[in-house]
Each structure stands twice: as C-alpha cells, then as structure tokens.
C-alpha cells in the first residue's frame, strides 16, 4: 500500500492521542448513559430506555431550565452583539498604538481567572458593593438594589465573560471594510447611511454570525457564572446537570440533559451556517 498520501495525517497524532481517549470517549459514554436507567439507589443500570429524554422534554421543571438557558443565551448574544459592534468597528479601523491598546483591552480579561472576575463583580454589584454604596451615599436609593445572585447579575457576568468571543470575530470581519471600500462607496454617491447599510453591515455579517455562535454555545454550557452569580429561582442548565449528577446521582438523566444540550448547540451552529450561506454567500469564497 502506498502510504505517502496519508503520511501527513501523522501531525494529528498528538492531539488525537489526547482528545480521543479524554474527550470523544467520555462523550460517547455520556451518550450511552443517557439510555441507561437510574436506579432509586443511585446506581446506573445498563439497559435501553428513552424515558430519560421523555422526562427531560416533558417535565415542566426541566423544560423551564432549558427555557431559561436558551433565553439567557439569546439575550446575552444579542446584548453582546450590540455592545461589541462599535468597539469592534473602532478596533478594526484603529492602527498602531491605538490598535495594540484595544486588542490588549479585549484579551486582558481572558488572562484573568474567571473566579477572580466573578469576585470582582461581586465587589461592584453586591448589596454592600460599590454601586449600591455610592447610590445610597448620594441618596438616590434607600435600600440596595439586588443585583448579585439575580438574573441581572448573572447576565452581567456572562456578558463580561463572553464579550471577547463576540468582539474578536466581529472585528476581524469589519477589518475587511478598508478605507478604499468606504471611499469607493462615497465616490459612487453613497452617503453614510447608504454605505453603512450596503457595505459595512453586510460585510460584518460573517463576523456577527461567528460571534453569536461562540457566545450562544458558551452561555448554554456555562457553569461558573450561573452558579456563582445566578439564582436558584432562575435555574440554568449546566449547574442543574451538575446537581442531578452529583447530588441526585441521576447519571442517566443528566446524560440525557447533556446530550440534548450538545444536540441543541449542533443544531444552532447548523442553522447559523445556513443563515450565513443565505445572507453572505461570498464569505466562503
């Protein structure tokens, strides 16, 4: 057999050696477990049942968890897109030291541990935190506004955590709008609104889609922020899966929840790619 055409696959060996046993196989085990049966004693009994899926997809308790999680993922994606857009535009148009500073500003939070960032937010938004202290000191409010361990606080935390995932692809897309395209538009008679609608916005679509994909998928499976900044009255998926698996010892059920979230992410990515193929067919050229 002539191995020459296949020999370059050898470069994938180190990552394969890591990912296949420690990533792919656990996921397959999770998939298998989702069809097993949870015994009341907390044991995982081999078998084949769709009951776990049926329960997750019919019990209002679980449906609410899924609903909450999708709702936050959508909200965080949209807010992140709106916040990121002007920044990404600025970043894409900047050059020299200004650009270095802006890129650094995006990356810096990624370097800091997410736990540290959560504590930072707690200092700011807690009942006795900086914001409430200041507002009470100047007499605008009498009692602290509750933000931490509320949906608001969790949303702030999620936004802060995943903003870079929106900014970077968006800025990469917007950097394709170079000065000559803007001048060409102006030269051909396009005012700023016309240029924005017909040039800047469409060219940024692939970046926005990539950013939404990243943020949406990340929020769906985020564990740290909902557990540390969220509230039990607005349960989110990842902490719930953790709770089912560890506290309730329902491995099969949590396996089904995990599989469903994986499928949702896959479905979402496919949908977004279809949207992209429809609205930005040129991006793949």
């Amino acid at each position, binding site marked *: 057999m002539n191995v020459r055409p296949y020999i370059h696959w050898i470069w994938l060996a180190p990552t394969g050696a890591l990912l296949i046993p420690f990533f792919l196989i656990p996921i397959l085990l999770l998939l298998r477990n989702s069809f097993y049966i949870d015994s009341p004693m907390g044991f995982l009994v081999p078998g084949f049942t769709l009951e776990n899926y049926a329960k997750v997809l019919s019990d209002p308790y679980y449906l609410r968890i899924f609903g909450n999680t999708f709702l936050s993922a959508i909200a965080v994606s949209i807010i992140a897109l709106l916040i990121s857009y002007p920044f990404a535009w600025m970043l894409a148009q900047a050059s020299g030291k200004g650009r270095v500073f802006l890129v650094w500003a995006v990356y810096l939070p990624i370097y800091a541990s997410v736990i540290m960032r959560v504590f930072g937010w707690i200092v700011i938004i807690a009942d006795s935190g900086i914001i409430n202290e200041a507002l009470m000191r100047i007499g605008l409010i009498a009692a602290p506004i509750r933000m931490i361990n509320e949906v608001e606080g969790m949303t702030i935390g999620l936004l802060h955590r995943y903003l870079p995932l929106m900014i970077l692809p968006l800025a990469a897309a917007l950097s394709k709008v170079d000065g000559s395209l803007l001048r060409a538009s102006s030269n*051909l008679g*396009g005012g700023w609104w016309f240029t924005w609608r017909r040039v800047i916005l469409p060219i940024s679509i692939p970046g926005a889609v990539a950013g939404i994909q990243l943020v949406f998928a990340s929020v769906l499976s985020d564990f740290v922020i909902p557990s540390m900044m969220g509230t039990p009255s607005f349960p989110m998926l990842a902490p719930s899966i953790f709770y089912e698996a560890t506290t309730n010892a329902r491995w099969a059920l949590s396996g089904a929840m995990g599989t469903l979230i994986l499928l949702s992410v896959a479905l979402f990515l496919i949908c977004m790619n279809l949207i992209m193929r429809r609205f930005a067919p*040129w991006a793949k050229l």
Partner: protein
Amino acid sequence: MARSLYPGDPELKSGLPESVLEKPVQVEVPELELKGVSKSFSGMRAVDRCDLSIGRGEMLVLLGASGCGKSTLLNLIAGFETPDSGTVSMRGKVVNDTPPHRRNVALVFQHYALFPHMTITENIAYGLHARKMDKSDIAARVAEVVSLLKLNGLEDRYPAQLSGGQRQRAAVARALAIKPDMLLLDEAFSALDRNLREDMQLEFSLLLRRLSVTTVIVTHDQREAFSMADRIAVMEGGRIAQVGSPEDVYRKPETTSVFRFLGTINQFKATALVDSQGSALRVGEGIQFEPAFSLDGFANGSEVTFDVRAEDIAVSETPTSIHKTNPAVVTLRTFLGPQERIVLDFGGEQVLVDRPAQLSFHPIQVGQKLYIDFDSRRSRISCRN
C-alpha cells in the same frame, strides 16, 4: 494593424472610427480647473500651488515619482481632501466644499476596491442605487456597461472569482455606470502583468476616447503615461513641473528635472573650455565637443554636468568626431527584445547606451572597446559649478 484587438466589436473591426483619433474639442468652460491649489499634511506640502485645466473628453496623465503629490491631487479632485488654498472648479463651478458623494466624478482605485460581498452586477449597480434610479433603468445601464467592458457571463460572479484583468474591467464598469463627468484612474494598471497591462491600456485608451470621457490618470509609469495621454502633467515635489503632449514633455522638457525624470539619463561631468575662438566641453580624457547649449558665464576650466539620454548615444568601433582617444570598455550587454542596452565603463564612469537590437555577425562583447558619439543638441546642461 495586423491583429484585431476587438473580435467582438464591429465598430472597431473595420478600423478605428474617425472620432477616436480626433483631438478632444476644447470648450470654453473646462471640465476641471485647478487654480493655485495647495494641500499640506502636518506641515508637509503635498500639493503646492497647482494650476491645471482639463478640457472635456481629454485624457490627462499626472505623472510623477511616488510622493510627488499626484495622489493627493487626485484626492482633491475626487473630494476626499479639501484644499488648504486655491480652488477646484468643475464645469465652471467651485466644488471645494462639495463632498465626494455629491461630485459626479468616478474613481478607479489601484486595487479596484470592488465590494467583496456583491456580485459584479451589484457592484456596477451600486452607484445607480445611490442615485435612486428605477430598477429597470438600472438593469439597462448595467447591461450596457457589461457589454461595453466585455464582462458578459461574469455578471453573477463575486470579485474573488475574477482574474485581475476582469476585476479591473469590473471596476471601470462600475465607474462608468454612473456616467461620471470625469473618470479618475489611480495607478489602476499597476496590479496587472505587463502584457495584460499593455492590452488594457490600449483598450481603455480607445474605449474612453470613443465615449469621450474626460479622464485623469495618475501613474508613476512613463510607458503608461505616454501610451494613454493626450497631455501629460509631470509632477514633482507637489508642483506641476510641466504640462504638454507626450512628445513635448519628452523632447522639449522645460526643466532639468523633467528631462531627468523621463527616459534613461547619463550624467557626464565635463570641463568647460572657453576661449575667444569659441567654447567646448571635455569629458574625461578622450571626448571633446562643441555643445549646442551656451557656455556663457562659465570660466575656462570650470566643471559642468550635462545629461544625455541613453538612446541618444551611439557607439562605434572606430573613433568618432567627438571621441578620438581612450575608448570606453563594454562591461555588460543586455538584450531587451526590440532593444539592446550596452553598459560602458568610460574612465570610471558608467555610461548606458540603448539602441535597436542589432542583427550583427559581430555582437557586442564584454571587454570590447567602443567610441561614444552623440548629437550635442540632444544633450542638456543640468548643473553649473
């Protein structure tokens, strides 16, 4: 013309139409007039008191080395820059403060600046949508320029799917679609391979003349300037050094710098020999001639620099009327197709000679001794020390 350049174009197939070769008609009000236009960037004068008038249908080339201000001048015309002083007028109206999108001037960018997310049709229609034309009118106009620029069959492609030449056609089509009062080409041929570039230059020269579009071409490429221009404006240091027909700027340069910028120049250091009988120049040991230019004001024995173009120098294996001793030595001979270039060492100075490639049984050999000859009327004094 042996080969037909435009197999699909019946009008051009039967030879060029008369109008193509006619000189553009100069009307009372020029299409574009610059009066004392200056523009500085952080204290650096990019454009310095430029005066220029362009007639309707004329093709004018702004020629100059990079950094001479020609692109800034183009930006001033397009409206991307506002002059610090002076006026830019179009059809007699001052447009200093008119923003680019309100000037009916179309610019073809160096790298075309086609919108990557639009098909060729959408790119061409862009300016028409900006003008809020009717859909049916837009479709008709697009079809018109598509066939004019021979883009048929490429309408639904994206710029990334086109070759360099096709992209350039698309960029010109997009510019012409808006029926601009003036077309500006900013180094628009520089990204093309040489053969394609020359084909495109010829094609656009003919097309734009046929359409009588007033055109301003910015380039640093002399060949491009000479092949396309009705008139050339040579720019240097932000100023327009000379405006004239290609022949005029080449044969009758008004300044030494224009002379030096165009063509290949040899600089000779010479000694002025002035006495009551007359004047002469001696170059190194061996060349002595009576210059066509005046040596009035030079003291006997003073140093003079003069320039001779490479194609104005002849070489001979026997002594010439001006070069009797100490022949130059051939250090290199390069074959350039229609031409050959001979590099000579003359007393330590390098001399370049261009001449039609010779069909000789004794080709020039490196190390061969040759005598130089030139017509002193074709030389030019450039420096007085």
